[in-house]
């Protein structure tokens, strides 16, 4: 019976081992574990026993929760893909709708906002009925995209806190999605992170048809967009380097490290200072 205890046969000082026993073990029935631990020499007295139990249970709960949360990266991936699909489809349908509505109503505009207005109309015949109904679908689809975006914004900081802090929730989700998960993103070198999402351009380059792409989806980041064109390569390298580190921290430990964010800020400032020097 005592051999089932979470502390049986493990070195009392080895919190990693005791924590994994807490996570994986099992016994037929509870028992007077504190007394058994003292008897077996695992702890000198009850106070010491509870002290060790506390350390091991905290470690076990922390790592188990972090692992379970990390599995959420797959949900984030589906959500951001669905968000992009909803966006693209809403725009495509809004365009079709705009053309159609333009042939019926004088004042109708283009795009999702126009679709929302159109959806409020009272249809006068069977043609208008179809157009107004389609407008309703477009508006719903746009609402769904907004709801998906909210979901992504809420979940990305939980799945990858450092990346979300550095790149914002949506870009984080896109990177996770392009890599196929946080675990694979954490294993990618920063050069790969830099061009994720630019695969087409990269293949063209490898086939000798184009120059090498400097950045993939990360180009939307302020660190790159806010830097003058001739320095964007350096900015993209710096950002990708820190994002790769952030992805590793998020995957392997999950705690927030303020210093990597400061380092990126400093690096980008240095790159931008060059432009000022050139101006002088």
């Amino acid at each position, binding site marked *: 019976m005592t051999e089932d205890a979470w502390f049986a046969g493990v070195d009392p000082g080895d919190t990693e081992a005791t924590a994994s026993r807490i996570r994986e073990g099992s016994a037929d029935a509870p028992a007077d*574990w504190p007394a058994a631990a003292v008897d077996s020499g695992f702890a000198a007295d009850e106070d010491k026993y509870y002290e060790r139990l*506390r350390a091991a249970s905290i470690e076990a709960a922390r790592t188990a929760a972090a692992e379970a949360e990390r599995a959420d990266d797959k949900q984030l991936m589906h959500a951001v893909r669905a968000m992009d699909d909803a966006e693209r489809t809403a725009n495509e349908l809004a365009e079709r709708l705009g053309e159609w509505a333009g042939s019926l109503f004088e004042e109708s505009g283009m795009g999702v906002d126009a679709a929302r207005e159109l959806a409020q109309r009272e249809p006068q015949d069977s043609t208008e009925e179809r157009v107004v109904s389609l407008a309703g679908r477009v508006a719903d689809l746009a609402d769904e995209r907004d709801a998906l975006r909210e979901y992504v914004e809420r979940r990305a900081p939980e799945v990858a806190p450092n990346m979300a802090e550095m790149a914002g929730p949506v870009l984080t989700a896109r990177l996770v999605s392009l890599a196929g998960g946080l675990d694979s993103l954490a294993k990618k070198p920063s050069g790969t992170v830099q061009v994720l999402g630019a695969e087409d351009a990269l293949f063209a380059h490898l086939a000798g048809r184009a120059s090498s792409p400097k950045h993939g989806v990360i180009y939307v980041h302020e660190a790159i967009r806010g830097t003058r064109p001739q320095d964007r390569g350096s900015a993209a390298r710096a950002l990708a380097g820190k994002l790769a580190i952030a992805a590793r921290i998020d995957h392997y430990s999950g705690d927030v490290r303020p210093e990597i964010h400061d380092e990126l800020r400093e690096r980008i400032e240095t790159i931008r200072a060059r432009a000022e020097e050139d101006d002088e």
Partner: protein
Amino acid sequence: MTQNQLPTGVERRSFDGRERLATRGKTVYGEPTDGEWRLWDAGRSKLGAMLELGMGTGLSGGESVLYLGAASGTTVSHVADFSGPTYAVEFAPRPVRDLVGVAEDRKNLFPLLKDARKPETYTHVVESDLDVLVQDVATRGQADVAVRNRQFLADDGRLLMAVKARSEDVTSDPGAVFDGVVSRLEDAYEILETERLDRFHSDHLGIVARPK
């Protein structure tokens, strides 16, 4: 309403001119403090509501406790403030992150990321003969959870349980749901007291019971 004594370590203190429950410990969720005492808000805690309503919890302070459905630790932090060893089970990973933080500020709180429907996954950690089983899982099959976790309680121990009617069945009348839960509980427990917690938590029933 019988006014039962509060356990040692829980006191009524004055907050904004009102007498409210309080315990001594590090603050957890931004609750107001009065010296070293921190407010235990019965509106945010079913066990707090049971005490506030004067139910006969039998708590005197210093008990060993298994708490099922700890969430981010709001109530269990207060429990640990006035109890002995306190095991806190919660199966949702996100709140457990906060619960770990609460445990780090206390010496006697042991967080467990486990499913309360599967006690065999923590029988090797949680000791036997505990004084109190607190349960607030708000999930379908609440009575079953309490029955399965009976094994941790001493024969003269207490079950302090909050039942949420809507978790069992959203359509039925709460009274009927409570009757069903109580009758299932009676397989393993003798019911000592029940009281609706509506003043603080709508459609919740507080139950005090002891093992049969």
